[in-house]
């Protein structure tokens, strides 16, 4: 089936409702991005999501959209439980609550540059990365792990990893309510037990950055950002625990879809009504994995603080490594949104998308209430990352959501080919960026060219009014799994 697409304006495109679609598709992209997108399957995936029961508003794709499995990466879709709306584990993904946390510091580039090599080495040692690596001083019993699943980042803070103030600056306060560890399989618990406090591999990373440019001075001040300042980004998720929760849930949902007579254009979209036991159980298990991810980023934060203190021989008061914000990139949440003038509780799926709540929203942390919720957009390891804030435009048009990253444009094979014969680590070092990587193929597969330029992605977001750029960050040292 050929896919019809109509341009709405410079950064919006419509996939008209046809066939089994229950609603239209809405894609945020520049003309150039759209030309590239039409070569792959991502747009057909936007259309497939539009066929699912109880969808409210359009099936949305952000400008970092790329071909996923089932749902596209960069997809947003909301479902109404009162209209037969569904929840789909494939609409969240395997890495439940994969997300990003940004720390600011009191240090500037000139202070860090002379000790950058030592800092990269220390972070690489203190923060476990790569398959099978873990901290020897963190052993978790299954019983303790179930507490992590209930409490999320709060568990970590209560065990001495960070402060209560950190929790104020995490989406949902670092704990998603309704988590029920009874619904998490033994397999998932086993996979997660040795992996709490680990970075993982692939596109996950830990990055020491410098604030390269402030775009919005007023908002930057509220966020505590200034030019030349050192920041740290942590990008990881729920590790094997989340992958197993998703895997287990997909099996349940395959039979649930048959049971509830839901027609699926792709098995990976399997789902169940939000009001069914299968739907409720998934949300409760998903909350466990999301909480595991919040705790994971909280532990890594503690080890980042420890590493900085070790390398610079400075105390907490001098380093002032505090959490600006921590956002989920893969999640489904019950939220209140205005539809046709009426407030409705909807299940918003964000798969490779970020919540971007506007100024004044009660769920925007108090400190940021006047400027909007911080949105953290990592780029690739050789270019930039961005800090944005949510807008009223995003709240009314995209269920308070925006993009999540650069988005891949090259397959791993193509990236490896492009990197062949080159010294990628040396190329980056020549540009002042240090890389420490555990995996053999990771550096080649994660080269800058494998991703869209994140600047073009946030530019579309800003022009469309679904996010506002605050600052640009440049990498100095990157730890990859």
């Amino acid at each position, binding site marked *: 089936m050929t896919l019809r697409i109509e341009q709405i304006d410079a950064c919006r495109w419509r996939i008209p409702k046809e066939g089994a679609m229950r609603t239209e598709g809405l894609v945020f992209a520049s003309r150039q991005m759209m030309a590239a997108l039409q070569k792959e399957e991502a747009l057909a995936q936007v259309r497939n999501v539009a066929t699912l029961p109880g969808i409210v508003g359009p099936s949305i794709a952000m400008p970092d959209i790329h071909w996923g*499995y*089932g749902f596209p990466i960069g997809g947003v879709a909301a479902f109404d439980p009162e209209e037969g709306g569904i929840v789909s584990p494939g609409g969240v*993904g395997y*890495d439940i609550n994969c997300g990003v946390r940004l720390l600011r510091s009191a240090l500037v580039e000139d202070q860090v540059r002379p000790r950058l090599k030592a800092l990269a080495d220390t972070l690489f040692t203190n923060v476990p990365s790569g398959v*099978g690596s873990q901290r020897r001083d963190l052993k978790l019993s299954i019983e303790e792990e179930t507490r992590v699943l209930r409490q999320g980042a709060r568990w970590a803070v209560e065990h001495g990893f960070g402060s209560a103030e950190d929790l104020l600056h995490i989406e949902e306060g670092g704990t998603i309510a309704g988590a029920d560890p009874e619904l998490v399989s033994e397999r998932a618990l086993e996979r997660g037990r040795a992996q709490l406090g680990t970075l993982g*591999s692939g596109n996950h990373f830990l990055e020491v950055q410098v604030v390269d440019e402030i775009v919005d001075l007023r908002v930057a001040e509220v966020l505590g950002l200034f030019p030349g300042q050192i920041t740290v980004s942590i990008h990881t998720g729920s590790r094997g625990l989340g992958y*197993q929760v998703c895997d287990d849930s997909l*099996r349940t949902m395959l039979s649930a879809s048959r049971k509830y007579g839901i027609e699926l254009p792709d*098995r990976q979209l399997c789902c169940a009504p939000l009001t069914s036991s299968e739907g409720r159980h998934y949300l409760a298990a998903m909350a466990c994995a999301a909480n595991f991810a919040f705790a994971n980023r909280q532990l890594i934060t503690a080890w980042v603080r420890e590493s900085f203190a070790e390398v610079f021989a400075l105390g907490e008061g001098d380093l002032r490594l505090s959490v600006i914000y921590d956002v989920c990139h893969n999640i489904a949440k019950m939220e209140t949104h205005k539809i046709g003038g009426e407030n409705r509780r909807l299940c918003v799926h964000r798969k490779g998308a970020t919540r971007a709540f506007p100024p004044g929203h009660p769920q925007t942390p108090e400190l940021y209430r006047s400027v909007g919720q911080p949105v953290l957009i990592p780029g690739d390891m050789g270019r930039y990352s961005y800090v944005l804030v949510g807008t009223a435009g995003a709240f009314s048009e995209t269920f308070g959501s925006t993009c999540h990253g650069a988005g*891949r444009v090259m397959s791993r094979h193509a990236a490896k080919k492009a990197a062949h014969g080159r010294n990628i680590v040396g190329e980056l070092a020549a540009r002042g960026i240090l890389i420490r990587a555990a995996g053999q193929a990771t550096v080649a597969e994660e080269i800058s060219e494998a991703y869209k330029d994140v600047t073009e992605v946030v530019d579309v977001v800003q022009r469309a009014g679904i996010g506002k750029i605050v600052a640009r960050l440049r990498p100095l040292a990157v730890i990859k799994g």
Partner: protein
Amino acid sequence: MESYRLLEHTADMGIEVHADTLEELFAGAACALKEMIWGEAGGRAIEERTVSLRGGDYGELLVSWLSEILYRFEVEGLFPVDFELEEIKGTSLRGRIRGEPFDPLRHPVEREVKAVTYHRLRVEPSDGRWLARLYVDL
């Protein structure tokens, strides 16, 4: 005899296998998964795990089988060396994974596979043989 190749995908990777029998097809898919994670790394078959699974159809059974290999590696530290499928009948499978304890120095991981997906999953007869195609999440 079975043959396999790794498939291109923007963010992830896929596997395509052709084989004369279902048993060879599943073994071939396991070899492809192993190559995706460890490349050419080899080892000795000194430990053995028996696997017995049930699934809705051959496709779901194949996802379960490959997921089992990931699980045995991640939780039990088993580096797989060879795979033997004793029987695949209807919705059940019996097989063995042989390998040795995982050693990151001898078995360096090229890329971590998070999970085996159902996206565009196919297991079907093709020109008198069997064909499987699937994608994994990296």
